[in-house]
């Protein structure tokens, strides 16, 4: 996109993002902007049907929409220009300047690096996903800076330029990492590899033995029965008929899980953890709070995973091109089953930096939006490790399937009272079985065991709640 924008003086193309390795095309369901509208980096500009879900897609450049190129309903390949944006600010300088020697390709394990997240991408190889997250930088839109200066100096081979256009690679972003030589075709293709592979992280399809698809309530009743939503809960969009949507989602899950089981040598570990104290803590806390602030055990479990994985960072990242790429940020994928069947595993960003209350709020929000079809592209694309909780379904333990290219997934079964021996005594405790499925190419059981130990510690240590 920035290729065009650089070459044509401030014109940028907003392209169909890749939100999963198995996503080849998408359909713009609806535009939220029209020509003449000003957009800011991080604004949601379109709803895109990725087959798995309708996703809110953010734009990563600030400017003015000059032209809409694809009309709603048209299915186009990933990388296809969807709109043109006149960029008013050179965002390049804003991005944290990376060590010039950093990894060539935007390692960004996040989504469609090339497609959606141009400027932020390359420079932030170290902490990829964060910079591009939908956090409109206030500085971005404000002052038109003496723009495109950097891009003007970019050296790109003509062939690479063509290839980049074909693949939807952002040359602008690439030029931040490759500064000492002209960008070649190989660089462009490498960038795609990283970006595309990474994107499947978000891969929607989630892994775990899918929770038995909800006994789909007769859809026929909906039209007549559905009372007008009177509260603020988001309403359902109605672009794709539910059954068609479910069928596509099923296909997408099938493709990703097939790939996972074909390519990823899983190993599995399990550990029982006494979480009586945690439950008592939650209960006590909830008594004193209004219902809107009540916690669920799931929130503490997510926090425990986020903190534990920081101790074993090799489980937090991606297996791309035969190598482990750790992520500095912890974006926790949360497997959310949809009532009509199927599931999605969008991310809670920077989960390790949120306290339990914030995590609870984030989880509530994410579950609601996943089930009403209001997820954002960044959430779909960049989980670094996923958590699946089948406790509510009453199973004791879950041995989940990894979402490639992530390298680990953590499972929680139900919390149940069980006999528990400790210090020579047997008592009754509330126990949960935690499980880990991890990619044996990236880590070994020894490290996985360390993770589960750290997780158990987090779940039992009030200091951490």
């Amino acid at each position, binding site marked *: 996109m920035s290729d065009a924008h650089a070459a044509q003086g401030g014109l940028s193309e907003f392209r169909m993002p890749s939100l999963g390795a198995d996503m080849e095309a998408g359909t713009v369901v609806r535009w939220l902007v029209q020509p003449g509208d000003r957009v800011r980096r991080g604004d949601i500009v379109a709803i895109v049907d990725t087959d798995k879900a309708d996703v809110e897609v953010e734009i990563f450049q600030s400017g003015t929409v000059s032209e809409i190129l694809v009309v709603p309903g048209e299915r186009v390949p990933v990388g296809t220009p969807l709109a043109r944006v006149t960029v008013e600010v050179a965002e390049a300088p804003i991005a944290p300047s990376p060590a010039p020697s950093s990894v060539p390709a935007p390692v960004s394990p996040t989504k469609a690096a090339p497609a959606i997240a141009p400027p932020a991408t390359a420079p932030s190889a170290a902490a990829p996903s964060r910079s591009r997250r939908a956090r409109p930088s206030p500085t971005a839109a404000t002052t038109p800076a003496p723009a495109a200066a950097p891009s003007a100096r970019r050296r790109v081979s003509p062939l690479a330029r063509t290839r980049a256009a074909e693949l939807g690679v952002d040359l602008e972003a690439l030029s931040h990492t490759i500064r000492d030589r002209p960008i070649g075709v190989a660089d462009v293709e490498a960038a795609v590899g990283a970006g595309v592979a990474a994107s499947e992280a978000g891969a929607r399809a989630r892994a775990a033995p899918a929770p038995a698809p*909800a*006994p*789909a*309530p*007769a*859809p*026929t*009743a*909906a039209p007549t*029965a*559905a*009372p007008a*939503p*009177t*509260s603020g*809960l988001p*309403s*359902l969009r109605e672009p794709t008929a*539910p059954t068609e949507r479910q069928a596509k989602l099923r296909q997408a899950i099938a493709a990703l899980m097939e790939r996972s089981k074909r390519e990823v040598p899983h190993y599995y570990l399990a550990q029982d953890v006494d979480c009586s104290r945690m439950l008592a803590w939650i*209960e006590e806390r*909830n*008594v004193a709070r*209004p*219902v*809107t602030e*009540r916690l*669920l*055990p*799931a929130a503490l479990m997510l926090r425990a995973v986020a903190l534990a994985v920081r101790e074993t960072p090799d489980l937090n990242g991606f297996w791309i091109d035969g190598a482990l790429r750790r992520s500095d940020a912890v974006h926790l994928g949360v497997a959310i*089953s949809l*009532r*009509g069947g199927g599931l999605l595993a969008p991310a809670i960003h920077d989960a390790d930096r949120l306290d339990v209350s914030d995590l609870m709020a984030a*989880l*509530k929000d994410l*579950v*609601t939006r996943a*089930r*009403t079809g209001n997820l954002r592209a960044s959430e779909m694309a960049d989980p670094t490790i996923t958590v699946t909780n089948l*406790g*509510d*379904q009453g199973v004791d333990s879950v041995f989940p399937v990894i979402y490639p290219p992530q390298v680990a997934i953590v499972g929680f079964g139900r919390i149940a009272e069980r006999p528990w021996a400790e210090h020579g005594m047997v008592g009754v405790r509330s126990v949960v079985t935690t499980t880990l499925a991890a990619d044996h190419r990236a880590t070994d059981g020894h490290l996985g065991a360390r993770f589960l130990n750290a997780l158990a510690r987090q779940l039992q240590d009030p200091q951490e709640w």
Partner: protein
Amino acid sequence: MNDQALEALVRRVLSRVAPELDVEGLEPDVDLREQADLDSMDFLNLVSGLHDATGIEIPERDYPAVATIAGCAAYLAARQSG
């Protein structure tokens, strides 16, 4: 509100919590988690929605009493003032 109106209210709140549900088809006396496949987040949203609609707080220790639609209605009936 009488029991019937309260049941209708519960169904209305449920339909917001889980828009895909055929709320009118739910049995009043069968556990909601089971028949509607509600998870703990849904249940929390239900309790929260009932509070919004009636002003009545349902503490966690009373959750067993509100496991069914009829249970919810009876619980609310017993606590509504006037």
